[in-house]
């Protein structure tokens, strides 16, 4: 299934400037793994030890945070869009 991943500015040096990456994946984990296979330097930024997601990255499937869905096991459908957004606080 073809899906899209939106790349934030802070990651674009690692994707040769690309702000959108298209790839085939059935889950969020699979999508991020494939993304890191294509852009190896992203791996250390996206993931912590034991393959856990960096807690300073929020991942959205379309407009919903994957932590409200199935975390990394969240399923993807053709045409879904993943956004990677650095976490910020406020108030």
């Amino acid at each position, binding site marked *: 299934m073809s899906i899209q991943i939106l790349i934030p500015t802070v990651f674009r040096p690692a994707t040769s400037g690309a702000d959108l990456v298209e790839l085939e994946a059935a889950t969020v984990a699979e999508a991020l793994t494939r993304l890191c296979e294509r852009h190896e330097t992203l791996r250390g930024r996206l993931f912590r030890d034991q393959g856990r997601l960096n*807690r300073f*990255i929020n991942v959205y499937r379309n407009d919903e*945070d994957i932590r409200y869905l199935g975390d990394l096991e969240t399923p993807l459908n053709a045409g879904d869009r993943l956004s990677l957004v650095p*976490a*910020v*606080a*406020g*108030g």
Partner: protein
Amino acid sequence: MSYAVSLRCRECRERFPLKGVHVCASCLGPLEVEYDYAAMKRAVTRASIEARPRNLWRYIDLLPVEGTPPTGHHSGWTPLKRARNLEKVLGVRELYIKDDSANYPTWSYKERVVSVAIAKAVELGYDTVGCASTGNLANSVSAHAAEAGLKAYVMIPHDLERGKVLGSLIFGPTLVRLQGNYDDVNRLCSEIADRHGWAIVNVNLRPFYTEGAKTLGYEIAEQLGWKLPRHTVCPTAGGTVLPKIHKAYRELVDLGLVEKSPAHIHSAQPSGCDPVVKAIKAGTDEIRPQKPRTLAKSLAIGDPADGAYVAQAVFESGGTGESASDEEIVDAISLLARAEGIWTEPAGGTTLAAAIKLIASGRIPKDESICVCITGNGLKTLEAVADRLPLPEAIPASLEAFERHVAERAPLAAAAR
């Protein structure tokens, strides 16, 4: 001259120059201002601080600001009030209210962070500032930007209290109401900061902005006679203020301005949005986000990015966390008003309600000093108490009608006491 020397990643410790960046380019961890504490210690004394005017800039040597700041010269130095009536009600020996509902000019703790952020925005050459806000921050950014002659874009969730919306609009910013909750607004602001060259105070100026919150801790200690309260109870939303009070207390000890003593810091959240308190109670700093459902809209941040640092500061200080229901929050607003003559918004009600529960359960011993941080003003959130305070009927302006009216209400008033 400031003693700030660099920005440093809280996670991987990489250093960056003192600019408008907020996340580490390597690991995306938050950046924090690093100081030359040795030089600061040689220059800063109780006397050097006490010689300055009574506003938050009396602590300018401990902040990352150069030159004369454009705003904030009447902000901070809010009352630290000994709450003798509440002491009697709660059966405690020594209770203080740090009352930022009286913080000038927009009546919340946000003046502290915004004064520093606006100073930094001007210093770094920005002409436009902005924020993602649950209301108070938008009010403060709008007012300070007006005073500093900056353009302002303030972004808020669509469902805020009317007083908080008008409280921004009056200062003439571009106010954008967004469909969604605060976390949606914050996410958009992060993308806006990415695209436009604006100073979004709680995004790309965040390392400087958050330092302003330390002044709350400095003031509490100085106003107590240069000592730390044994317990500080503080509300948690995005997670800015509690870790910065912890940092302020630690800096004062390290600089030799106060003696080291146990200073436990406790986090308060509404039970309709308590991801940090839940983590604290579970003994972890791993925060699971929530969809907020609470009357305390200024604390309705379900995905607090600095939540982990709140939990860590609470654990390091030997503190705890507690949450309060909407009903407990309004009860506490009412108690604070009737006992001490202070009208706070639901965030303040949450903090007092949590403090009451911590005292009742013995987690805060009754014979130890307690400071409750009230961070916002009730006049902005009339909706929170309007149902409980129906408008009294209008009566004829005659002595007879007055006497009858008062006699009818005497039993009700007695019951209310």
